[in-house]
């Protein structure tokens, strides 16, 4: 059922792309442009998850067997927000600690993202994949970030 919704959404995006002739799809991040691209109406969490996380962890958070692990239902998205923030900012605390992982690909760190974007992403994956776990604020991300230095 969710797949059907996805196809409809994808078709809508493609139709929008076709309507603007050869113009590429609008970038996920808002960027100033001469001709305003069609507005991205997705909620910020969904949009930022799609921009940074989705291709590896997939739209349902289920990951890809042997390639990238699932996050849906896992202890990281349900657990301590600060630990989750540190995990994402360090890419799972760096590849060295995860040598025994059964999947191929190493998660990159996301500490380059601003606190606000990380808070939106973490809140999204906790709500959607963590059984409705509590939202994470930008100040909580900032506090976690302070621990990295």
């Amino acid at each position, binding site marked *: 059922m*969710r*797949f059907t919704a*996805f*196809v409809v959404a*994808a078709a809508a995006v493609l139709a929008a*792309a076709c309507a603007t002739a050869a113009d*590429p*799809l*609008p*970038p*996920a*991040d808002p960027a100033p442009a001469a001709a305003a691209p069609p507005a991205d109406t997705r909620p910020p969490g969904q949009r930022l998850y*799609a*921009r*940074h996380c*989705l*291709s*590896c962890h*997939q*739209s*349902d958070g*289920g*990951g*890809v*067997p042997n*390639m*990238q692990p699932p996050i849906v239902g896992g202890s990281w998205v349900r657990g301590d927000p600060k630990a989750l923030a540190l995990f994402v900012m360090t*890419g799972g605390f760096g590849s060295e600690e995860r040598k025994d*992982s059964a*999947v*191929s*690909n*190493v*998660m*990159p*760190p996301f500490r*380059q993202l601003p606190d606000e974007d990380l808070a939106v992403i973490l809140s999204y994956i906790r709500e959607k994949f963590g059984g409705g776990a509590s939202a994470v604020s930008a100040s909580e991300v900032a506090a976690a970030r302070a621990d990295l230095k």
Partner: protein
Amino acid sequence: MRTKNFARVVSLSLALYGGAALAVDDAIKVPAGFSVTVVQEGLGAGRHLAVAANGDIYLAGRDGLVAMRDTNGDGKVDQTAKFGDVQGTGVLIHGDWLYVSDDVGVYRYPLKKGELAPSGARQTVVSGFPKERQHADKTFALDPQGTLYVNIGAPSNSCQQKDRQEGSLGQSPCPILEKYGGVWVFDGNKLNQAPADGRRFATGMRNAVALEWNSSQNALYSVIHGRDSIDTLFPALYNAQDNATRQAEEFHKIVDGGDYGWPYTFFDTKLGKRVVAPEYGGDAKKSPESGKYPNPLVAFPAHWAPNDLLFYSGKNFPAQYQDGAFIAFHGSWNRAPEPQAGYKVVFQPMKDGKPSGEYQVFADGFAGDMADNSPRNARYRPVGLAVGPDGSLYVADSQKGRIWRIQYTGK
């Protein structure tokens, strides 16, 4: 443990066939005149397969090696045996030997007349490849003289200073290419070789899982896995739709000393030309130095994941298939959020070793509905190809370990 697994596989076999007619698989769509039957299933995470001159089928897989036989010639497998201690991808029959590979070596078992599962000891042809997580499968090809060509995939997406990290530039020159990202040759008849005993035959190949000797051309060919994530790594240059569509899976004739352009370039299907990778100063349109890297014979769509290649020389299929290439595309993950693609067997007509027409989808319908656009939910994923003594094409699956036989019946 092995006895237990064996019992499980046999019971599945009986449940599947149980004296009934051949299991026709209507879900797999093939051209008119061909039929698809299920030979065996429940074999786990299958990879490549080989069929012996007597029709015995050997499957390599992440759950180990399996041998299968149709003892009474009715088209149904009625003996299934797990054997050996190799969990990997490659399997080929060469002379009286069954060559197999895992992530760190290539080995062989003697094939003795009448024997299904080899009873002889496993010999090591080459071992000691570093244990890697990315692109680790050591698939291989053998030429008639027994030269062994081993794919040593690059444990990297694009040789960034920090793998798969946004904006990280490429290492220059890419040090990975010294030991990975190409094809190395060994003596297939010599035992206990080390990686250092091999010679680099070709380079600039990110992961050449689909590597095959073409007997009609006396030459090596490959369909190479292209790179991932141009959009998330370089969002100012590429968007999600670009990433889903532009980086070709490149079909090449692999020549001694050849360089196929990874990680410095990729073939852009939108522009129809090779471009410099964004990690190496590419701006989404800049071309590399003219003539430095060959264009592919065919640029297949991005992320389809070519996992096996076969040149057809069997006697069952119509004349147009002779010497043409079948390619098993395992299917994408990195096209998301765009719809996933691949998950099919494609036929590329060939004449004198060159493409002689557009590629055609030969077998499709493996993935099923694939809920949530997730590869995890694919029903089947084609991963291995082989031709039987009668000219039938065999296809192996990685999701459930199903094996199909595709025959031309003319009906």
